[in-house]
């Protein structure tokens, strides 16, 4: 690669992991609140619990990676990042680090509230769960959006400099959140038969993910179309993910294949097709929604791989492209 990358694997992973955690919490809180916000038998309590317990892990891990990539940390000044919290200004990174800190706190409290496995309605945690869920949804959305705003705020990087990116990262984060809950749910089901409750929650998760991926495809289409139908910097920059030959010739990397295969086909088209197939067959034959366990494991993995590759393509493509001319 003939371009210096200042943001590499740690930042790519962070953007993915922060989105994953934010998505898991938002989806968990939404499912929990939409089904009554209690631990009653009819609520999506188990799924909300998976999301709640998962959420802090990727976010904290991602934040560590982010600190690891700081120049000051790499030369041994391990706590210089604290300076981020001595100021608050309009830099997306400044706002983002405050948001992230608050979000980590919220996600830990939320996980604590869901720690006991038993569905105890009216217990002490009941009120805490509901309150934190209400705060968690806007905070999760804010963290997911900020990861896109962080990249989008710079006119010097035409590939990133679009509001579409924030929406794309938000949708991808929510989709990853649904996927990780689906995955953990499928893994922990471990051969137990489909009950009416699990069928209901499985149907909701699958349906939501299909809808989110549908919107993601729309946003990707708009992103590409508006970039390609313009002239100058943005068109030049976006050609890196559209055409292999131009990507190699102009930028020395082949981002087009990575984008079309890993992001679009593996991350979006394959999962949405499978999901739509099971949603549709369940509806048509009036039978209980049921998905084979292997599929229930494969689909979320594809979504998560796609989500990671989306961050990979965007972060690399944005850095190797720039303005044309001088």
């Amino acid at each position, binding site marked *: 690669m003939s*371009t210096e990358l*200042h943001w590499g694997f740690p930042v790519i992973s962070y953007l993915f992991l922060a989105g994953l955690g934010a998505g898991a919490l938002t989806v968990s809180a939404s499912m929990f609140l939409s089904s009554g916000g209690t631990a009653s038998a009819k609520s999506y309590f188990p799924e909300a619990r998976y999301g709640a317990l998962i959420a802090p892990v990727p976010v904290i891990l991602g934040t560590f990676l982010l600190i690891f990539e700081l120049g000051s940390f*790499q030369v041994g000044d391990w706590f210089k990042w604290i300076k981020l919290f001595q100021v608050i200004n309009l830099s997306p*990174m400044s706002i983002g680090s405050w948001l992230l800190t608050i979000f980590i706190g919220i996600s830990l409290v939320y996980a604590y509230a869901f720690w006991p496995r038993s569905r105890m309605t009216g217990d002490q945690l009941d009120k805490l769960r509901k309150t934190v869920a209400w705060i968690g949804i806007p905070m999760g959305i804010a963290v997911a959006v900020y990861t896109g705003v962080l990249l989008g705020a710079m006119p010097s990087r035409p590939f990133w400099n679009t509001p579409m990116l924030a929406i794309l990262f938000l949708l991808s984060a929510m989709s990853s959140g649904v996927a990780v809950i689906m995955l953990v749910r499928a893994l922990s089901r471990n051969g137990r038969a489909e009950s009416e409750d699990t069928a209901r929650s499985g149907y909701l998760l699958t349906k939501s993910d299909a809808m989110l991926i549908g919107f993601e495809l729309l946003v990707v289409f708009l992103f590409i179309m508006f970039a390609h139908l313009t002239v100058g910097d943005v068109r030049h920059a976006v050609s890196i993910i559209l055409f292999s030959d131009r990507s190699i010739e102009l930028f020395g990397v082949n981002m087009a294949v990575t984008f079309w295969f890993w992001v679009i086909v593996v991350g979006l088209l394959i999962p949405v097709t499978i999901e739509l197939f099971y949603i549709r067959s369940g509806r048509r034959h009036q039978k209980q929604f049921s998905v084979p366990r292997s599929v229930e494991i494969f689909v979320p993995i594809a979504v998560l791989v796609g989500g990671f590759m989306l961050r990979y393509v965007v972060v690399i493509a944005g850095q190797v492209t*720039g*303005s044309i001319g001088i």
Partner: protein
Amino acid sequence: MKTNVSSTRRDFLHKLGVSAAATAVAGTQPLTAHAAVRKRNIQYAMLIDTRRCTGCHACSVACKAEYDVPLGVNRSWVEYVEKGDYPNVTRNFLPRLCNHCDHPDCVSVCPTGATYKREEDGVVVIDEDVCIGCGYCIQACPYDMRFLNPVTGTAEKCDFCEHLVSKGIQPACVETCIGSARIFGDINDPTSEIAQMIATNPVSVLRPDKGTEPNVYYIAADHSGEHERQRNRYVRVTTHRKQKIRR
């Protein structure tokens, strides 16, 4: 970005202000003396007459030596722009340094307030005690002028040799230029050489479409880039730095 700066930075600014005032009172240095008498905003700027540049890299070397810049990174450099097909060919030189923009994108993204545009002379500086090395400004600069210093772990770039200029000495690259291609001074002072040269010559800045209002001006700069190859024109840009392709 002027809110809640750390005490170190305030001290730093204070000291600078005191030293600048002291030299101004002494009246030995024309650049600072002017400002003190007229009480108007100084905006240091540079004009590079590329017709007088021979591409000798003396400026890059002087800059490296002045700041002990680590291997592999540069605060300033000279790009070679080759174009055309034999016999109609040309090679032009484009010296590059921080533009000290009026609207610097690097400043607006800095999360710690470590980089800022100085009110007293318009120079964009980095406080390395506050910089955490996140790399955001490096991404945000439309001119790719910033880099992460591998020794200090902080962002770095040209600062118009503010340590020399505050003592009335020209920046290292200006002092060393064998062709006198570089003119440095206060662009807001109509009697300065740079203001007069800019007023009487056709000048250009780099990437004006970015809206950053750069303060490094060029006479006869070749703005050609390698993207023109798509129009079947031969252009080759040699950056003479680690980053081989202009971003």
